[in-house]
């Protein structure tokens, strides 16, 4: 089973790849993990991971700059139904639009806009940075066996924008930061994580291991 992590010049893929390698070893998966910027490899892969740091527009432009990548993702994820995991801005790109600095179109796989977080308590800092617990909106296979809720495990967040969903159906989990922040979404074969599984120690490694065996 092959997993590709898409390299489009956005940030730190080394640690993402290492976390997938580790989760694979720990869970006894036979997956091969490859970091690639080649759409041909994405077409051959069975699972797709789209990471992303920096601004929405920069990530969108970066992904568009890799010839054929945007169209390949559309094809493999929405038409061929391959399991897909977006991380941070990689998750945000699943939305209809990003409203960070300028309005930018996303994949529009999940109806919603990416907006600045706006904690009710003005003393709360932005970015939302650090370890937070997850409140479950509905069960999902990627969280199988992971203790959630206020007494559960923590996930590592660092972001100033989040996905404001047009409807709640895709919502899997939120984090409380002066109000509910969208933390995890899923629809069919697609999942998106606002937090960084590759930086979230035991919760993150368990989630990645679940992704490697996910049968949506």
């Amino acid at each position, binding site marked *: 089973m092959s997993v590709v992590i898409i390299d489009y010049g956005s940030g*730190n893929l080394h640690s993402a790849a290492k976390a997938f390698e580790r989760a694979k070893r720990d869970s006894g998966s036979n997956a091969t993990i490859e970091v690639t910027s080649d759409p041909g490899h994405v077409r051959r892969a069975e699972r797709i991971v789209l990471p992303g740091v920096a601004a929405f527009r*920069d990530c969108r432009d970066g992904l568009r700059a890799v010839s054929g990548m945007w169209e390949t993702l559309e094809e493999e994820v929405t038409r061929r139904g391959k399991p897909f995991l977006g991380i941070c801005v990689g998750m945000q790109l699943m939305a209809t639009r990003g409203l960070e600095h300028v309005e930018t179109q996303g994949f529009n796989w999940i109806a919603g806009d990416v907006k600045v977080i706006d904690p009710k308590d003005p003393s709360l800092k932005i970015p939302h940075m650090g370890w937070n617990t997850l409140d479950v909106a509905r069960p999902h296979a990627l969280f199988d066996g992971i203790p959630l809720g206020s007494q559960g495990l923590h996930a590592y967040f660092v972001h100033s924008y989040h996905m404001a969903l047009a409807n709640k159906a895709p919502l899997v989990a939120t984090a409380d930061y002066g109000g509910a922040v969208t933390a995890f979404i899923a629809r069919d074969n697609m999942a998106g994580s606002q937090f960084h599984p590759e*930086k979230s120690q035991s919760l993150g490694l368990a989630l990645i291991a679940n992704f490697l065996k996910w049968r949506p």
Partner: protein
Amino acid sequence: MLKARIIPCLDVKDGRVVKGVNFVNLRDAGDPVEIAKAYDKAGADELCFLDITATHENRGIIFDVVKRTAEACFMPLTVGGGVRSTEDIRKLLLAGADKVSINTAAVKSRDFVRQAAEKFGSQCVVVAIDAKQVSPGQWQIFTHGGRNPTGIDAIAFAREVVALGAGELLVTSMDRDGTGRGFDIALMRAITDEVRVPVIASGGVGTLDHLVEGIKDGHATAVLAASIFHFGTFTIAEAKNHMAHRGIPMRRDSL
């Protein structure tokens, strides 16, 4: 609920940890990667490496240290010391750092902060502010480990770098650093109340109550300490339990 963070900081010189560490049975207490793994296991929320490598030739060693750490620790890693160009930042991020801490280069050129934030995102740009009190309620930026005064007002500088895109500030009181007398709470408060980004309090921790004060009185969202953890005075678990007992939300997943 978001938790307060504890960040152990390691001074790394030519690939080895200086100011030795003796808190656990490490095979090699000078190896930053071994120590990083031990802190990861002990429940640290993030790690910070400060590269104080003396010669330009040995500078490349830190990339290898970061790379090996990122292979073993699945937690956020900040690297500071000698970060002068966007190329330095790119190399550190590619090696596996999540954030870089910029100090002297930000003082020399504010525009560097803007460039770094635009290119890599605010989330990975930490500006380290080393400040000394010059009169009551007034602090100045010092560089080169507190030796060189710049004449720049610390609060105005904090405001400025945040406006340019710094995503976090690491504020060290040069008056308190190494004294064990606690954070300079007035300094922390002057900065945390002025900016909207998270602030890490640093410099002066000697007791667990100092950590509590940094969060409760200093309004920092994270506390950085070196010697109290390195020398085994306290464990991360003891620090977290103490802070939680004093009403600060702490992450205790692995304790």
